[in-house]
């Protein structure tokens, strides 16, 4: 019996899968192209997707956890401040308190509710810092992903739709950017565009992270557009004299949304990990601000002595990434019509 290779491989541009570095690689199914008849299905596609997503228990679990953590990160710090007076940057005046205290302990070792996660090396409340870290990490994840979405979708769609020589050049540029030394890119970015305000430094971090993650997004969108552009509805639009810009952004791009949403969900954890990696190298957020990544990077140094410094930010971060990944996988399954069973 002749074995057929799975048919979806032939439908995508092999090259597009191949350049994806593992850190940014997407699970295969995300890059699938919808069949013609599914576009006809219109809104029911989204309704079906929602139904399928809600049926996927791990994805629902992920969704709940992500929403929960987001809310706690947003609402937690003001509550803690009101209740105990601790903020992420309040170093105690009393020198005997400037040390790392275990969870639920006071400085002399007796039980205390003051620091449910303990304190860091400067005696700051770890709970307040983990929640602040959540704000920063989620913000970094979401904003950098948006940056990568905007650039990546625009770039990929234009390259894919125009095709030919333009496409070739645009994709070569992506190849080149992939090969550039990322660390040096970050050093230059942070040095050339300097900012001494905390907000400005955060924005630079978003740009630094987004500037790399859009490359994969561009590849995926391009692959999608390549296979969409010769479909009847596009051909029809072209025949009726709709402008190229309008075709790309009103007709083609909306039809790539499925894979794009899926990939974006998976990009968030990847960007958060990249930020953690930058923090590990010392390029992350500026102190006294902190992200989960920078807290974990700091905690890992002290794991042998103050394990709580790693465990709390580490577990919170892992749980969030875990949930985001499951949510992303669930979305992919839900938006993948072949999975409809």
């Amino acid at each position: 019996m002749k074995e057929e290779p799975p048919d979806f491989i032939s439908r995508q541009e092999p090259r597009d899968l191949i350049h994806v570095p593992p850190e940014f690689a997407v699970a295969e199914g995300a890059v699938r192209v919808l069949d013609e008849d599914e576009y006809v299905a219109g809104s029911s596609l989204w309704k079906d997707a929602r139904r399928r997503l809600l049926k996927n228990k791990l994805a629902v679990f992920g969704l709940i956890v992500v929403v929960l953590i987001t809310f706690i990160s947003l609402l937690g710090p003001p509550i803690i401040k009101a209740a105990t007076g601790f903020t992420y940057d309040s170093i105690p005046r009393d020198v005997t308190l400037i040390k790392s205290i275990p969870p639920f302990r006071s400085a002399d070792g007796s039980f205390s509710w003051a620091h449910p996660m303990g304190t860091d090396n400067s005696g700051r409340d770890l709970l307040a810092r983990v929640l602040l870290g959540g704000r920063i990490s989620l913000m970094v994840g979401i904003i950098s992903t948006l940056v990568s979405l905007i650039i990546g979708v625009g770039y990929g769609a234009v390259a894919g739709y125009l095709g030919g020589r333009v496409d070739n050049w645009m994709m070569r540029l992506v190849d080149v950017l992939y090969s550039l030394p990322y660390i040096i890119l970050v050093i230059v970015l942070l040095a050339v565009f300097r900012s001494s305000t905390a907000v400005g430094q955060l924005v630079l971090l978003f740009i630094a992270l987004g500037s790399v993650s859009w490359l994969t997004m561009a590849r995926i969108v391009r692959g999608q557009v390549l296979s969409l552009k010769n479909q009847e509805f596009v051909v029809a639009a072209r025949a009726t004299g709709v402008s190229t810009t309008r075709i790309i952004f009103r007709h083609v791009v909306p039809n790539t949304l499925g894979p794009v949403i899926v990939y974006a969900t998976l990009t968030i954890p990847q960007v958060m990990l990249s930020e953690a990696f930058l923090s590990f190298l010392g390029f992350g957020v500026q102190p006294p601000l902190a992200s989960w990544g920078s807290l974990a990077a700091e905690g890992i140094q002290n794991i042998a002595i103050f394990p709580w410094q790693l465990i709390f930010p580490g577990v919170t971060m892992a749980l969030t990434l875990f949930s985001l990944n499951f949510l992303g996988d669930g979305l992919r399954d839900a938006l993948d019509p072949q999975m409809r069973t």
Partner: protein
Amino acid sequence: MFGLTIKQLSAVLFLGTLVLGTISCAASASNEEFFGRTEPPADNVLRYISGDEPESLDPQLSSTQPDARIFLALYEGLVEYDKKTLDPVPAIAERWDENADSSEFVFHLRKTARWSNGDPITARDFVYSFRRGISPELTSRSASLAYYIRYAESYNQGAVFVRDPQTQQFLLEKDFTTASNTIIPLSQTPLTANVVEYKPTAEEPTPDRDTPFHQLMHSPTRLTLPGNEQARAAFLAKNPKLQTAVAGREFVKVKGEDIGVEAIDDYTLRLSLTQSTPFFSGLLANQFFRLVPQKAVEQYKKDWTNPAHIVTCGPFKMKSWRPYNELALVRDPMYWDAANVHLDGIRFFPLADQPTMMNLYRVGEVDAVANHSIISAWVDSVRFKKDYMAAPEAAVIYIVMNVTKPPMNDLRVRKAFDMAIDKETALKWRKIVKPLKGVTPYGIFPDYPEPKSNSFDPVKARQLLADAGFPVIQNSNGSYSCPKFPVDQVEYLFPSASSNKITAEFWQAQWKQNLGITVPLRSMEFRTFADFRSKLEYKGFAFGGWVGDYMDPFTFLSIFYTPENDNNTGWWDQRYVNLLDEANRITDKQKRYAMLAQAEQIMVDAQPIIPIETGTVNWTKKPYVKGMYPNASSLFPWKYVYIERDRSKWDYGTPSLAE
């Protein structure tokens, strides 16, 4: 099914956390006497983490402290560091004479010293090594250490002498100098028949031979001009008197042969200096002044440090080198003092990550680690162990301020920020470090008078700020604010390392509490940071630190010596420099120290820096490693180090530096 899975999931997570928690708690709570295992290695070889990967195995090219530790094993110079005090002790030179104002030195070499290939070591090897080190082509970054040697600076800068083509006479510096009170050191005063340069000793009853070169050195200094034509033209344009004098003369490049290094015979070396330099013999132990093998260098050029070609002269020689992994040395039987070398070999592991170092140490994979290996958070858990080394270090940490930009160009503002930091509390919190009043470290130079610096006084600090036009207001809840202060014009810049971060956050909190000013923190990758700081592109504050090159207060005071902003603050004062120069001409140690301290006080009063702390060596060694003392620069003459297998003779605590 779903519920079960989630339960299982959370159970796994919970269990994982618990297991981890217990393991790590168990690991940290152990009340062992030592930090980790203490079984001596089977063979007689020391395993030591030296710090960063060596930049080069050429002692004249690499200037870093980790590399210096390796060079102490591979190479030797005229003198070697004392294992405890770091004072110069005889090495290839058995003894030396110093003239009355410490501006000329004669070294008597031992006749038994040999290279690792068996060739004898002679004074000519030193002449070659010093000329090579100073040559502009080598671009050694430490060459300025040798600028005390006569004409070395000119040679290193590629400068030229000016000679009359007819008379072959050189123009002299004294005819053009503008400074009035120049004091000519004895090394440059003409020799007359009745001058006794050195007191006769039992070993050397007759004075050293006079030579034409010696006569030349004792003649007035020649004029030197920049070698680069454009630079020279620019220099002459500013100096019309020179310009006319130079017309029609020829320019002669300063050569290696011109510098004040002379081999009187095979075993006698004479060094002529530009000025009195009482600390010069101590400086000679620096890696820059160690011997390099002329034959190997000339034959293999830059490849001479390749393990196949390298020739060394220290107590140990090369066995194998795997960069970023291990440099293995073995005892060198050719070494003049081989009988007194205890170890069969040393394995240097180049590693800079502190937790990794300490992990290797803890499991007993290494016997000792480089200085500063214990990160501040661990200190409390390690410092009471009996293998922890606590001793003051010849290293200081301070905050530099950019005095060229407002608001920090106002002395009152600088003083206010200094007074607003509670250094007593900081010292209690940091535990192992020592105070710092100026820029010379505390407790390293016992007879050195400490400068008077500001004490913690938040009230006065706020008053000073108000005087400068930035009134500090007390809020209803007791906190302070300073709305007029241009916070966007200051920041605290520091290189990204967790140890710097934790102190940065502490200073920030202090200023916020006491002045109501939140100085933004900015951590940067090291080279970006260093670039910003040296170009004075930073606003307000930046991290500063200095490690001594030799054991004399001058190595610290010289940070502020040059007008070219080596101190990264933009501050410079001629009075300061004059006092230092004057002090260095005094041979009496007490009087010299007093005058150096007087200069330091000028700097402290001008407050270009906020002194923070004197460092501690902060490292560990296994109790069975003996003969390794926690000296102020963590530089160990390896031949004294040995492995003690008799437990009763182990070190239980920091070995004493006192005799």
